[in-house]
Every structure is written in structure tokens, then in C-alpha cells.
């Protein structure tokens, strides 16, 4: 299996206008060989799901920087399931919580995102290479 056979949808969720992270990620994933669709900023959940269907995506990468990622991401897995994307990979990343007390309690954040049906959640210190490695491993791509 090769990266080129896999398609990834990336976007910044909710009312969030930050898009540099997603933009950088897109460049990195494309360079690693993935097919990538970048949805831009302030993307509603529905748009993620529709884009995933349209592009036969294998993973949705949800970027959230502005601190309300937990609120914005709730229910996304359900929408995926409803749309027949039961097993699509869901990653989140960025600054997903507003208060520092939560943001610096990463096990709690991981717990919450797992409960919400996400496969992985990343801090903003993650490198593009780490994301590529995780995707390859989760998607069974030889590296």
C-alpha cells in the first residue's frame, strides 16, 4: 500500500479562522505522497463529511486552534457514521482547549477525544513528520 493511494481531508473546524497550520500540514502530507484536500478555515462538520465522501477519503484531519475544539468536535464521529464513514480515521490537532489548565492536562484531552470517537489528538508542537508517520502506520502504508 502506498501513500498515493490514500486521500486525506484537512480543514479548520467551527468558527475558527486559523488556517496556517492546516496549510502547512497540507503541504507536508502532499510532499509525503498523500492525496490531500484542504477545506480552509471555519469549516462546519457537515462540510468535512461531504468532502470525505466526495474524495473517498481515508482520514479527516481536523485542525482547531482557537480553543473551542472540544465543543466544535463533539458529534463529528456520529455524523461520519450516519454518512457511512464508520471507520474513517479521525485526527484532531492544534490548541484544542481554551483554558491552560485543560490544555496542559493532556491525558484528559486524549480521554475526551477518544470518547468523542477520534483516533488521535495532537498538540501544536507535533511535527509534520510525526503526523505522516502516524497516518502511515494507521493506514497500513509501508514506509
Amino acid at each position, binding site marked *: 500500500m502506498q501513500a498515493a493511494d490514500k486521500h486525506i481531508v484537512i480543514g479548520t473546524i467551527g468558527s475558527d479562522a486559523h488556517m496556517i497550520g492546516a496549510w502547512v500540514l497540507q503541504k507536508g502530507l502532499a510532499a509525503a505522497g498523500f492525496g490531500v484536500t484542504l477545506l480552509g478555515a471555519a469549516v462546519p462538520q457537515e462540510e468535512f463529511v461531504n468532502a470525505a465522501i466526495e474524495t473517498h477519503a481515508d482520514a479527516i484531519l481536523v485542525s482547531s486552534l482557537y480553543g473551542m475544539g472540544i465543543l466544535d468536535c463533539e458529534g463529528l464521529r456520529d455524523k461520519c457514521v450516519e454518512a457511512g464513514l464508520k471507520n474513517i480515521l479521525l485526527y484532531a490537532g492544534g490548541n484544542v482547549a*481554551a*483554558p491552560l489548565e485543560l490544555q496542559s492536562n493532556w491525558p484528559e484531552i486524549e480521554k475526551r477525544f477518544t470518547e468523542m470517537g477520534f483516533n488521535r489528538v495532537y498538540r501544536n508542537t507535533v511535527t509534520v513528520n510525526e503526523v505522516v508517520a502516524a497516518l502511515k502506520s494507521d493506514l497500513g502504508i509501508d514506509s
Partner: protein
Amino acid sequence: MFTEKVANKRLTDEEFFRIRREEVLSQWETGKDIENLQECIAAAKELSEGKNHALRFLEAKRNGTFILIPQFGRALTEYMIEGITYVESETGLVPDGAWNLYSDSYTRKKEFRKAAAGIERSRKEGMSMLNGWPIVNFGVEEARKITKASKLPLHFVTCDEDARLASEIALAAGWTANSVTSLQECISHSTTITLADEIRLMQYDARLAARYQEGGVPQCPWNTSHLTGYDSPGYHSFVHVSEAVLAAEQGVKCQFLSHGIGMNLLQDIAMIRVSEKLCYEYCARMGYEGVEFVAGVFPFLGAWPPRDDESNAMIAWNAAIPALGGFPGMILKCQDEAFATPTKEGMARSVRLARHMLTVMGSQRIPESAALRQEEAMIELEVRTLLEKCLEIGDGDMAVGLCKGVAAGWVDTMVTPWRHNPGKVLLVRDAQGAVRYLDAGNVPLPAEVKQYHLAKIAERESRDGRKANMDMVVEDLQFASKLP
């Protein structure tokens, strides 16, 4: 939403009150508490006594002193008051300080129902689940509690497209600065709104500030170029001057020019000088009399380093630039910047750090020099060219010219979520860390300026032994957030 064409014209009383009634106060139930504008102005006058933004900032400008401006924004009123009083009492911020207070992003997008859910959620979780204070949901009486809790002038970040109701509530609470922006908002926070619509929305905010001013409560709305953190200095100045003219038309008499900086000492100082000078010049030329401008610095809006020690360096250098430039307004980010909305402890630490920068270097200024003059000249040429082209294409109307400029593709910057931005521009840093056009797209840079930028980039290319390209652009986005 807006069908009329945009024009740089003062809203008539009739229009203003029609919009107020039909489009603004009706947005949410708290609108009804501020129906009587006269009463609101009277209350604001009393509440802002001794902590008026315009009066304090103009005084600092006259005296050559500085105002430190921490930021804060949490979901609940009690968190707001706790944070504000903590910082004010722990740092000696009073009297030479002011506040930059944030609403949450749902409020800024008029998603008041989501904000309400966020309030509930914050109560349940016992912490702030919103990235700011939902002023519209809370309404004017709650806002007044905050006014009373602080000894300092308050500015409310009323932006993200339609912030008219937020502005109404903030000013009615005695906060003495809202935001008068336009292109800034599109570039920073928007995706699909048209510039014409954004200008119309902001004309209301500006006219509202002017009404308070006319009613005896001096106002100093913020005219900002916070943008994305990755924009050319000329673009920054251009945004300021165009916003200045639009706000002045609505009767705004004092504006705080909050410049996002790139952290190149000379270039930043040159940029701010050019903005301030051209704000005065263009306003005078268009017949707006007695408009005052106070210059300030907003710390680097690009990516920050994820560790205290490096953040301390950022805070220090971002304070050194306004100090050496002699710009009265020093907005502060804090050590939490890379991670989460500022904590009160973080803001207090940052205030203390910046304050001590002023203690040891506050009266030192950068001397005049040929290098600084050249940087100023280059920026001024760029900005004048854009402004003149706007006025020309808009037949003397800045609003029309701006909109046409974006549509025609020659008003442009980089990495914005705004879909109407042409997006051909690419910027990199030169060998001294100044921001330069690698690709100016269709921006009508005078040949001299274009060559200057390319020559500067060539210096870096030869120092680094490689060509400037997209990889370099991406690296430069993160130059200040990298740890060794």
C-alpha cells in the same frame, strides 16, 4: 444582507437608527437593555470617569510615556473580574495601563446560541470553555460590573465581521474603545464576507463611537493591522490609513493604531512612522479635521515558541520595539501564547517583564539614520501607491477603491482564510530578518521598491547559500516558534 453599494459616507441619523433598531438590537435579547442611546451615553460618561482610553492615551503621547496593555478573555464574568483585578493589583499596572479584552469567537460570529451553550458548559466544567467573554449573551449590566472592577481604560475587541451589538453593549458599559477596522477583519477572521459588507458593518461601529464622543464620552477606537502575522509592512500601513479615513468620515476623532509587527526593529519602526504620518495626511486631505492618532505595537502575530524562556525573549523584544520607537501603546502577549488563552498569572508576569524593560530602557530611542530613512521611504512609496490607486479607481472614494482593488487583485496578502483575497503574494525574511516580497503578485509596487526587496532577498540567498522559494516561505512562518 446589504444590497446597496458601498461608499465612504457618513451614516445619516435616520439610517443609523434604522439599522440600530432593525439589524443590531434585535440580534439578541440583551439588545433591548440598551435601547435608549442617550441614557447609555450618560451612563458611560460616569462609568468611564478617570479611565478614559482617549484621554489617557493622548496624555501618554504628549508626555512621551507608555501604556502597557495586557489582554484577557474568559467565558464567565467572575473569571474576567478575577483576572483583571489580579493583574492590576499584582503588577503596578495602574495607572499606566489599559486592557485589551476579548469576546469569544462564537460571539464574534453572531453564534449566540453556541456562546450560550459555552457559558453553560464552562459553569459545568468549572473552567473557561470559550476563548473570550460572550458580551452579547451577558449584556450591559454584566459588562458594567467589569468596568467597575477595573481602574483602567477598557478596549473591547469588537471584530470578526458583525460586532455591532457587541460594540453597543461595550460602549454603553463605559468601555471607551471598540474596533474600527474593515480589510483587517476580512484578512484575519473571515472566509466569505465581501469587503463591501464588512465596511458597511464597520461604518456603523465607527459612527457609534463618534456618537459617544459627540455625547461627551471621548472614544479611541482601535484601528488595527493585526492581520495574519505574515504580511508586508506596507500592507499593514495601507490597512491603517484606509481604515483611518473610513472611521474619520463617520466622525471618529481619536484612533489607536495597533500595528502587528514582524520583529524587525528598523522595519517595524519605519512602518509605524509611515502609518501615523499618512493617517494624519490623508485625513487632513480628505477634510477630516482634528483627528488624532496614537501609535502602538501588537506583539508578533505569527507562531510563538512553546516554552517560557523563549516566550520571555519574545515579550521582551516585542516591548523593546515600541520603546525604541517611542510608540505609546504596548500591547502584551504572555508566556501562555503558544498554548492557550492567557492566564491571569501569565499576563501578570508579562506586565512585570515589560514594565522592567521600560525601567531600564524606557527613555532610550532609536537615533535617526540613513538606514531607517530608507526603510521609511520604501514603505511610504508602497503605501502611497496603493492609496492613490484606491482613490483613483474609486473616484476619490476610499471604500469603493478598496473594494475594487481587492476584486482587481492588486490589494493582496498571504495565508489568509479570506476567499476573496487574491493570494498571489509571497513573503520571506531577508538577511536582517525584515519581511520582503518574494512575489508581489499584482500589487503595484513601484519598480524601485520591488528591486529593493529583491536585492535584500538576494543578500539572504547568498548568506544562506540557497534560493528563496516556497520552502523558505513555510520555514519563515515558523522562525520564531522554533526551539533549538
